[in-house]
């Protein structure tokens, strides 16, 4: 069931009609049950919308808006919206974690690891072929003074 005046009722609620037209619509409302029900529904809807608008979180509203606007955005094009305090906390945690890890590698390092690093100084000879020292020279044997060897001075 529909009445031609229903649109006029909606326009009246929205304040779009002239005062003469409003008088006419109100006269019709008194005699038309359909328009009376529609008028009541419009008013209820308006009330409901007002209460909904108050509950809307601006963040959620923005997220929804972003979602609508960026329908084809790629992952790297998307924005992450975080409240400033949360972001500050996350940054602090990351910083503290970094400091902790660097402390573990430094002063709390395993002493055996340090020894291994020292013994790795021997690596040159382990890894080298004897041919590393070879420039094609002939094996030589010499008799020298012991004092000229200086063994042990740097060998330690």
């Amino acid at each position, binding site marked *: 069931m529909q009445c031609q005046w229903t649109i006029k009722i909606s326009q009246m609620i929205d304040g779009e009609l002239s005062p003469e037209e409003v008088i006419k619509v109100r006269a019709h409302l008194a005699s038309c049950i359909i328009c009376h029900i529609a008028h009541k529904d419009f008013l209820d809807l308006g009330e409901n919308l007002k209460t909904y608008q108050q509950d809307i979180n601006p963040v959620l509203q923005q997220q929804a808006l972003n979602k609508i606007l960026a329908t084809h955005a790629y992952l790297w094009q998307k924005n992450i919206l975080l409240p400033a305090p949360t972001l500050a906390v996350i940054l602090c945690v990351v910083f503290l974690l970094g400091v902790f890890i660097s402390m573990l590698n430094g002063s709390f390092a395993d002493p055996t690891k340090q020894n291994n690093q020292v013994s790795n100084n*021997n690596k040159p000879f382990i890894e080298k072929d004897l041919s590393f*020292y070879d420039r094609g020279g002939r094996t030589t*044997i010499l008799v020298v003074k012991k004092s000229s060897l200086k063994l042990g001075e740097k060998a330690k």
Partner: protein
Amino acid sequence: MRLKSKYKLFLCTFLFLLINSNKHSFSFSQNNLPTTVKRIQFKVSTIEETSQNRHLLAESIIEGPVGTDFEINLKDKKFNMDAYFLTDLESDEQLTMQAKLNTKRYYGQSEKNLPLYEQDEQKHNLTVNLDEAILLLPFGNSTNDEKLKIEIIPSFITRNIVDGKELPLTIDIVKPDLNGKINVRAYKIPHRFNLVAKLLADGKEIAKGVTECFFKQPKEIQLDFYSTVSQESSIYPLVLSLDVSKFERSCPTNSFELGFDIFRLNQTKNQKEPIIENGAGAGNFGEELNYDLTNLYLPTSNKKYELKISLTVANNE
């Protein structure tokens, strides 16, 4: 009278016991007295040397009786070196060392993709005083920034021995080579031998030569004829040039290997005529090696000539 004889008997028994106990205690103390022996040490250090640094890679200390020989081997994919050192005491403050250096270096590949090697063999007779050391440079005395050196430092030490027990030869690895590229071995074998060579004609000894020879050192010996030998033979004295090339411990007697050349000395022309060149023999110490020279020494004489060579280890070894 009876009492006197009892006293005499007691006195004799006491004296006998006293003397015996003294003898026993003397011999006991003498056996347990530590005696000192002179031993030799060789400190073998392998060093990587740069212009700024000196890095000890491996070190071993060999200790043994005077006359201990040793080997140093370097082994890698492209380079091998075997250095043999035969050592002997020259005087209280001096050593003689026969060094034999064998090297093998990878050179590349032939057209048929076969490996080519450069091989070298050197022999050196060195005299080393106590304040001196041997410096072995496997890759020569080049001006590289990084050099590999092997230093061999000899020294004498005295050790106490108890009950006359001989001290063993030891190799103390102070710093092991980390990759097995350097190996050191040491052993004590006799260096001096007594050689007797006899020439027999139809089974009768007609000439003899006796000499002492040193391990791996060529020695020449001329056999002297006995006065009863005919004029024909005595014109051609036999000369041996030989060297003991190998000593091997075996049971019941140790064995040896010998390399030799045999000449006859033509006294009229005053020249050596070869009979056998590059001959070799192997045998046990104290046993004779026999060589038939009938067709070689004096072929026209219609006599059977034999050469007998025997070798024994010298007493002081």
